[in-house]
């Protein structure tokens, strides 16, 4: 077995596996989108157009979507084996992701303070489960980036590169889900 290719072979295996995993996630989110569409707008209780705010939605989106851009910086560093660039990319992405989470949690907090909770009606239940699952994905991603920071220092570069690439796929995927959330959850009720 020629040792030159070990990391390449195993990385391709992992990439295949992770893409299949993302397919699984896509099915899960689709089921939640279907649930949301079925139960929205609700027959009773608050209507989505009374709750959603254009400003929060747009700000949150700007932060999250640009974080996919800053991640490209890290990806470039990965190919050039430039650790500084990588760390800068991850750092920026982390900050943008955290800013997104700030608006997200602020929205949840506001709804809950106004008394719009999971049990209020089925629109809100589906909203919390769907958007909440996405938010927990972002949170998980934030934690993952902290881990990546440390991994960059302690793992052999090829292994780090592999883990970083996998994270990149994850983060882009989470961003795509957000775009669909924008289109399905928010857009129809913001106009």
């Amino acid at each position, binding site marked *: 077995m*020629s040792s030159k290719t*070990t990391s390449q072979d195993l990385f391709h295996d992992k990439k295949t596996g992770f893409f*299949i995993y993302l397919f*699984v996630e896509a099915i899960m989110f689709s089921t939640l989108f279907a649930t949301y569409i079925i139960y929205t707008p609700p027959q009773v209780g608050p209507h989505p157009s009374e709750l959603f705010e254009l400003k929060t939605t747009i700000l949150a989106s700007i932060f999250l979507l640009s974080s996919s851009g800053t991640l490209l910086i890290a990806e470039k560093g990965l190919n050039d084996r430039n650790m500084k660039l990588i760390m800068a990319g991850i750092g920026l992405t982390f900050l943008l992701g955290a800013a997104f989470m700030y608006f997200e949690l602020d929205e949840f907090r506001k709804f809950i303070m106004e008394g719009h909770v999971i049990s209020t009606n089925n629109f809100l239940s589906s909203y919390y489960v769907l958007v909440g699952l996405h938010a927990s994905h972002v949170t998980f991603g934030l934690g993952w980036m902290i881990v990546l920071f440390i991994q960059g220092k302690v793992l052999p570069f090829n292994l780090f590169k592999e883990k970083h690439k996998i994270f990149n796929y994850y983060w882009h995927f989470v961003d795509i889900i957000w775009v669909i959330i924008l289109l399905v959850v928010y857009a129809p009720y913001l106009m």
Partner: protein
Amino acid sequence: MEFTFNGNLIIIPSDVIAGWISAIIALPIALYWITKKYYWPLVWDYATSTNHRKVGTLYILFSMLFFFRAGVDALLMRTQLISPENQFWVFQGEKFNELFTTHGTMMIFFVATPILIGLMNVAVPLQIGANDLAFPFLNLIGFYLFLTGGTIFFLAFFFNAAPNMGWTAYAPLSTDSFTVGPNNNFYIFGLQVSGLGTIFAAINMMATIIRLRAPGLKLTRMPLFPWATLITSFLILIAFPVLAIALLLLQFDRLYGATFFLGELGHPVYWQHLFWIFGHPEVYIIALPAFGIFSDIISNFSRKNVFGYTSMVAALALIGLLGLMVWAHHMFTVGLGPFSDTFFAVASMLIAIPTGIKVFNWLFTMRRGVISIKAPMLFALGFIPTFVMGGVTGVMLSSAAADMQFHDSYFVVAHFHYVIVGSTILASFAAIYYWYPIMTGMKLDDKLGKWHFWLFLIGFHMTFFLQHLAGLNGMPRRVYDYTYDDGIWAYNFISSIGAYLMGFSMLFFLWNIVKTHRKNKQVENDPWNGRTLEWSIPSPPPEHPFEKMPIIERRDMFWWAKINNKQIPTTENHRATPISTPTIQPMFLSAGLFILSFGFIYGWLWMQILGGIMSLGTFIIRAFNDERKSVYEKEERENE
């Protein structure tokens, strides 16, 4: 038994007490026995090894244990139903609901599904000339998730909280307005945890088959069991995520006051859609691998290659595809309307065509073959007529108008047992006899195997054939009682006797295993004179059997090499082998998920937090303990 605790009156039924007593007696005996025989190192080896053969063996072992547990449930049910107006022990009313729920759920999720995954683990990598699955670590994680989910579900009984809403968990019965208490939370978390494991297993199988095949082993040359595995994995990847979300929504209904499936706002029928979008493909998830197993076994024991290979593959794919589209045939009676009913009825009937093709191909494979009737082949021979009968009643049920009559009667019970036992269970037995040399290096006794087969098959038809008639005579399913006037006494009586006979046949299987291991006689290589690659290596195989990968030039390459007295050419320079080292991380993860689940089941926040931290902690431990680290370091040094 009744007593007061903290001022509450607590009533514990005698069957639960009996369960505790037998556990308290059996557990120390088992531990003593392991200690006395110095088996702890062996146990530890299996518990931490990520080698596909060992993980597969564990899957099979624990599925068999759950099979015995779910089988006892079945026998208890049959005892309660043996005569009209019977009052057997405590199993009436609510207790009977618990019986059929735990029986059905365990059989589907903790027996049929994992045992097939175990067999895939044992055989698929070897059949495609790979040294291991693509992700050995993930593989062990998957196994532990199955074991943890199964244990959570299993323990419910000991806390006198067995789920009681049927394995389909129909809303609104499954919501906390109708079934209070922790019982059905056990169902949610047992299935959620093990379902995740099933998804991981499917990802692993798919990546393995896509990436790790031996050079030259094109998909068109692959044996049929790996083919079935590939298509099954695809079905799992669609069905199980839907189940996961359905369970999540149900969890929100039960624990956090949402009303997805309940009340004026929710739709109980939405649960049925989600459940059957999972549930119907699940039927094929446990049937297609069985087809694959039978194809390999029938061809092996007939000394012929599979008749109509291409049509066999096409039929597998077609069945899988149609299987995804017909879920609403379980819902004819909820009133979806004539258009929908017609569509789903026709689509369901279409499945009979590829299935028929497969049956005829099996028969043609045997035609003019040199058939040797060993235990595995016997099970395959028993499968064909049994499964055909199940298929015929399936077509009957798929006619929407007729289903209005059959629905929720014993006719349905008879139908699905013909299908599931006929395919999955017979295939699992066949495969265990067939691949036992790979798992252990020993061969099970053929004579005892034949006893097992005949008693099981006769018992099976005695049990379930008459249930068609009981159903047609109006016996509804999920009832614990009937009267003399119903005219179904004889059917039920014979049915119960048949069930005991099946239970009895399992003793031959157990005895066979004990006897084989007592004798401990190692087999020679290629014990069945096989055709596929798993027989080209020693049994049991070493951890990396294909140090040099075989180059495959045709279907049934090993067989061709054997009869032409040729060597299979090999290559020095092949792709990297997955890296596999023993690990205790999956144990830690399962402990975390176990605690987490109990936190949710009983609503204890501190336990949820503790379990959550432990489970997430595994990710961090894993992030810095990657088994590939040293290999990558070495590679980097060499490539400097």
